[in-house]
């Protein structure tokens, strides 16, 4: 397949792996004293396991799987609020497919649908907008979820609804941003990270500069990376070279897609429609300041929280604790998924307990599915 196979070439991978091995040796990293590299994005976690990169890279590199899976970090209380909105008889609740299975306190959206709620899977908020046009007697609510990658399309749909004067369309906004949780992780005294591989598609929207604080304030390197295996290997090499040379910079490995300053039209749409919330809850990480977005008062008519008096609009919140769930420790790199006492026992992809087991891009789910958890015999 053109434009994908080129970035999956085993020969090129071999050459990169040899270079990675050499730099790991120069640094003096070993299995006992590894370099800790966090891949922030769930898409990267998935690719690492899908291509077996964790087993191909030297033992002196340890991947720490970051909080960059929007489905995984969605708190249970927000799922409950989705269900609450979806169960209103006048509502058609629209959502991306992979949010359907996320467990709430009472039920997931999948279960609410089976119980009779009108919940429909869509591929874009524009599909939800079309449903609103075609069903003027129903309230169509779109479950806005995701990082800077999906935020612009939700913003455009709200702007469009406003232009058309639609009154039966609203967004339940759960959009979150990447830099604040990174800062929260770096401020954690238990943190062991030596460098980051950053999500390329987020930078496609916001550019590379929002990460400047990582080298400047914390002295750690970050590479904005693509999603193919060669992208990842090259990015790992770039992180290692910075560590070896005692540098800490933001570098752009994914320059074929990511412009330095991002996409101005998307940035403008985000700024027009959203403002930062004072604080937003992350599953496994708790409340993080200015990490979530809410819809500006000018667009309050399209804010499902305001429309239905639900969520942060309903008053102060209590952060729930899931008994025995170690997602927080896994996300800060203090624990491997397999060392969580619930892994594969109380917490499986069929019955996820914690955030990281929910989506296929969660670290625990990737471990479970692709066998990081269970011994795979080495291929001869």
């Amino acid at each position, binding site marked *: *397949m053109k434009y*994908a196979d080129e970035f*999956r070439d*085993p020969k090129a*991978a071999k050459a990169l792996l040899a270079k990675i091995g050499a730099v790991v040796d120069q640094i003096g990293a070993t299995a006992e004293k590894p370099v800790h590299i966090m891949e922030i994005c769930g*898409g990267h976690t*998935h690719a690492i*396991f*899908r*291509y*077996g*990169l964790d*087993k*191909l890279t030297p033992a002196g590199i340890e991947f720490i799987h970051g909080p960059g899976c*929007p*489905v995984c970090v969605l708190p249970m209380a927000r799922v409950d609020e989705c269900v609450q909105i979806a169960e209103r008889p006048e509502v058609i609740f629209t959502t*991306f*497919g*992979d*949010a*359907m*299975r996320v467990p709430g306190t009472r039920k997931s959206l999948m279960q609410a649908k089976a119980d009779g709620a009108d919940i429909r*899977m*869509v*591929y*874009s908020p524009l*599909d939800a907008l079309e449903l609103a046009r075609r069903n003027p007697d129903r309230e169509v609510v779109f479950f806005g*979820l*995701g*990082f800077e*990658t*999906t935020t612009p399309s939700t913003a455009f749909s709200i702007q469009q609804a406003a232009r058309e004067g639609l009154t039966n369309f609203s967004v339940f906004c759960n959009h979150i941003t990447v830099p604040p949780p990174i800062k929260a992780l770096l401020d954690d005294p238990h943190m062991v990270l030596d460098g980051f591989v950053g999500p390329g*598609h987020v930078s496609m929207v916001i550019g590379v500069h929002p990460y400047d604080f990582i080298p400047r304030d914390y002295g750690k390197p970050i590479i904005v990376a693509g999603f193919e*295996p060669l992208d990842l290997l090259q990015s790992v090499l770039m992180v290692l070279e910075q560590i070896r040379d005692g540098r800490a910079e933001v570098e752009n490995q994914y320059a074929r897609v990511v412009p330095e300053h991002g996409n101005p039209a998307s940035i403008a749409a985000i700024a027009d429609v959203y403002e930062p919330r004072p604080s937003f809850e992350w599953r496994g990480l708790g409340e993080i300041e200015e990490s979530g977005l809410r819809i500006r008062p000018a667009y309050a008519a399209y804010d499902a929280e305001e429309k239905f008096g639900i969520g942060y609009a309903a008053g102060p919140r209590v952060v729930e604790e899931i008994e025995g769930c170690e997602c927080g420790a896994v996300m800060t790199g203090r624990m491997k998924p397999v060392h969580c006492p619930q892994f594969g026992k109380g917490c499986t*992809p*069929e019955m996820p307990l914690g955030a990281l087991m929910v*989506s*296929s*891009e969660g670290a625990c789910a990737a471990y479970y*599915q*692709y*066998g990081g958890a*269970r011994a*795979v*015999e*080495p*291929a001869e």
Partner: protein
Amino acid sequence: MALRDERVTLAHGGGGKAMRDLIEEVFTSVFQPDGMEDQARLVSEALQQPGARLAMTTDSFVVDPVEFPGGDIGKIAVCGTVNDLAVGGARPLWLSAAFIIEEGTEIALLRRIVASMKAEAVAAGVRIVTGDTKVVGRGSADKVFVTTAGVGVIPPGRDLMAGHVRPGDVAIVNGVLGDHGAAIMAARGDMALSAEIPSDCQGLGHLMEAVLAACPNVRAARDATRGGVASALNEIAEAAGCGIEIEETALPLRTEVKGMCEILGLDPLYLANEGTLVLFVPEAEAEAALAAMRSVKAGQGATIIGKATGGQAGRVTMRTLFGGARIVDMLVGEQLPRIC
């Protein structure tokens, strides 16, 4: 022509003249069963051979949309049941066909479905010998649901079973993977993808006969329908108590299907097929099996994808492009398209 309606009404399920007209004009005039008794009365020489066994299977078919590139619900309903018989080593002979029809369904649509069932039955060498129709109110079904049962004969000496697969046996597929699943997703049209992917929907009876004639020691075959090739392999590994290792680079995939999976975050190993099987043969017979498969239309793309191993029982693994290994597990729930 007694049937003047354009659409099915509840009257067509009422047991009276309207129902008789619908059945005669749309169904029995095309299927041409031997008689109009409430049962089919059947004779088969194949069954007279000592040691021959009767094989029977049934399957219900619901698909949205009911017509899609490469087939329709009728074609699947015949192929699916014929294939369930064929992969077990049976020669398919007779089918029943029962239809649950939603009020308001276009009669022209039913005629198209019936025509494609007839054509597929003729191609597969089976006869549709009995059937039933029911009409339900609008919203109680989605246009039309079809249930087929199939009866075939397993000639003496044939004994295909997943439990017979042994370490060292070679896994062969007859062609590209995931086309049906991808075709249905594309045909639903809610993804704004312009790819026209035809379903792989096809009968596998002739293919199985060709292989069995060339390789008497075929161990087992599985029709990789729902849950895709991954599920078929997991079932076999579990039943045989062995491991299975497949090669990522050996998997035959259409470029459009690969691209769609990339965009939506789906794994083609789990996409449904309606005319794709996985076959296990002893290594010594692999070349003969490939040649036999390639000699028939449904097997033109036959290729080896992996082998059974002495590895952990029930475990399917895949050697990735890079030489890494990962587990190919059973699917949890259904595959859901991802956010970003």
